[in-house]
């Protein structure tokens, strides 16, 4: 049994208390350990992704207890790609936080950051629904701290909303888990898949309720309309690097839907057939449209970016809701794209703060470092709105193509194309007001306590790195979408995953190591 799989969770779990206890007053040492931790995380993620690339599913049994009674951590193609995505994103965001000195504006940024990474990694790796809940809580409690990092009234108020909304979400999650356990007697995902399949036609009421409750919880995380209300103000008010890291948090919800609703409640399962497609696809289309309208209507740059996140999550969910192999492939390609694009835009929004009174979409004097910031905004906006030549366009094409196979094709095409146009208009207007019209304003009131220090080179490097990831995702689109197709193929043949989880021998409930067959 390989112990490497648990390391992405254990490493930040050890590093965070070390940073709090040993390096509490030395921001320099905190930075070194934090960056080193994330670099090690990337190396681990590459190793695990390499291991899973040929389709191997690796299992780690905690305490050596056999599933379904023991807790398991499972690494397959999907989880390893998600942890690789998280660690690469975390590196650039961390570099930005250091470069822009956001980490000095409050205490314990680096420790909370590591805990946040731990929660996200755990959520991607766990093979057990209750542990998914626990890791959701770990990542949420760290995110509460990060969200209100460096304080301020607006931020605290947005923080209260964010925490309350997520607490209600967690309660719902527990209700869902309770109903699932009451119906099936297990919470291990592989075991659950077997048992849900056995439920007879006459007793499906409980499991149908549980399945809808569960998808609602994940939809809250994925900010699907009408459960998106927590997102705009919390993302807009959160410190920029935190908002950029949160770009992966909505994807945790999308990941959970992909994982649970391809394995435990697959589309062809009789007990829940037609239960999700009925409203998941319309809700996703509404999110997409509403996000685009929000982009057009936003009066501040940070809110505009937050609404573009809702729109791109709508796009991801449209693709997931079709539940075909082609559509999951498209969704995975788009998830990677949208994570980097959203993170880059949140950081660029912060860069645009240098020398502006606020982020309102009104002409204000030229900001410090305007050329570079404007250039980066231009590229990231092209990516986010899905214009050629960047990866947003490729992802959108894949989704549109997958849409052909469904009977909602007209709706999918119409909503995606029109909302893209609306987003383009919204971003073009924002860019021209913030960066272009600034040229015609006299820089008279610069002295009014506005900080005109240009952002540091490290901050630009970090944003540049994210943009470079988007470019790489476009240039290597053949490879990345090909691999996404392999991931989807593995997801639609969950038997290999289930047999690895359930058939690997381990310690039994009486403490013996006997062959598990007759037990």
């Amino acid at each position, binding site marked *: 049994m390989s112990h490497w799989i648990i390391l992405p969770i254990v490493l930040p779990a050890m590093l965070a208390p070390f940073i709090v206890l040993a390096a509490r007053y030395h921001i320099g040492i905190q930075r070194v350990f934090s960056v080193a931790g994330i670099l090690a995380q990337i190396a681990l993620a590459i190793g695990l992704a390499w291991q899973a690339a040929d389709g191997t599913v690796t299992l780690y049994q905690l305490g050596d207890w056999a599933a379904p009674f023991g807790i398991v951590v499972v690494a397959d193609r999907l989880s390893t790609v998600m942890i690789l995505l998280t660690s690469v994103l975390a590196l650039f965001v961390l570099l930005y936080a250091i470069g822009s000195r956001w980490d000095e504006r409050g205490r314990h940024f680096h420790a909370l950051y590591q805990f946040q990474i731990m929660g996200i990694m755990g959520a991607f790796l766990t093979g057990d629904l209750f542990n998914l809940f626990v890791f959701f809580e770990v990542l949420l409690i760290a995110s509460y701290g990060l969200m209100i990092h460096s304080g301020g009234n607006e931020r605290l108020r947005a923080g*209260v909303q964010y*925490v309350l909304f997520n607490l209600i979400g967690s309660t719902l999650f527990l209700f869902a888990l309770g109903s699932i356990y009451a119906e099936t007697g297990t919470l291990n995902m592989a075991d659950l898949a077997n048992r849900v399949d056995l439920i007879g036609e006459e007793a499906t009421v409980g499991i149908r309720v549980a399945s809808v409750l569960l998808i609602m919880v994940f939809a809250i995380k994925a900010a699907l309309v009408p459960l998106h209300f927590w997102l705009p103000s919390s993302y807009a008010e959160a410190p920029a690097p935190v908002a950029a890291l949160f770009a992966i948090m909505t994807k945790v919800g999308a990941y959970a839907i992909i994982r649970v609703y391809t394995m435990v409640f697959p589309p062809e399962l009789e007990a829940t057939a037609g239960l999700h497609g009925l409203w998941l696809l319309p809700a996703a289309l509404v999110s997409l449209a509403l996000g685009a309208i929000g982009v057009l209507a936003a009066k501040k740059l940070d809110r505009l970016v937050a609404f573009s996140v809702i729109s791109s999550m709508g796009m991801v969910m449209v693709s997931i809701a079709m539940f075909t192999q082609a559509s999951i492939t498209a969704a995975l390609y788009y998830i990677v794209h949208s994570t980097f694009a959203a993170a880059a835009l949140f950081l660029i929004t912060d860069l645009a703060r240098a020398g502006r009174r606020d982020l309102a979409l009104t002409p204000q004097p030229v900001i410090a470092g305007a050329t570079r910031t404007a250039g980066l905004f231009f590229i990231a906006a092209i990516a986010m709105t899905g214009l050629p030549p960047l990866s947003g366009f490729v992802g959108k094409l894949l989704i549109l193509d997958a849409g052909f196979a469904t009977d909602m094709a007209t709706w999918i095409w119409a909503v995606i194309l029109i909302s893209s146009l609306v987003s383009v208009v919204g971003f073009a207007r924002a860019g021209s007001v913030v960066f272009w019209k600034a040229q015609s304003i006299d820089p008279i009131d610069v002295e009014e306590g506005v900080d005109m220090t240009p952002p540091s080179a490290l901050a630009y490097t970090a944003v540049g790195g994210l943009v470079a990831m988007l470019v790489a995702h476009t240039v290597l689109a053949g490879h990345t979408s090909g691999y996404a197709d392999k991931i989807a193929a593995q997801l639609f043949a969950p038997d290999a995953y289930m047999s690895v989880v359930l058939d690997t021998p381990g310690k039994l409930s*009486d403490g013996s190591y006997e062959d598990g067959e007759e037990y």
Partner: protein
Amino acid sequence: MEILVASAIGILTAAGIYLVLRLRTFPVILGISLLTYAVNVFLFASGRLAVGAPPILRDGVEVYADPLPQALVLTAIVISFGMTAVVVMIGLGAFLGSDTDRVDDPAEDAS
């Protein structure tokens, strides 16, 4: 006993949802506490209600209570307790900073 437990969960949930929909921080936090109590009892009941049955293996015992929900409830209690403490602190900070404990956005920034 089933009726008692079921109606307790129902009443707690209903009261919790009503309070969560209020506009001020304090009732909302109380509502969330009630919801977490409700969900804890619900989780406990998800392993079937059994009176006087041991949850661990023993010689000569035929009827067992399901031990797993008890472990789940412990985890859920710890997490919800911690989360409530966090939200009280953040809510208090927001109230002291802005002199209002409303949870909604002020009208001018709801763009």
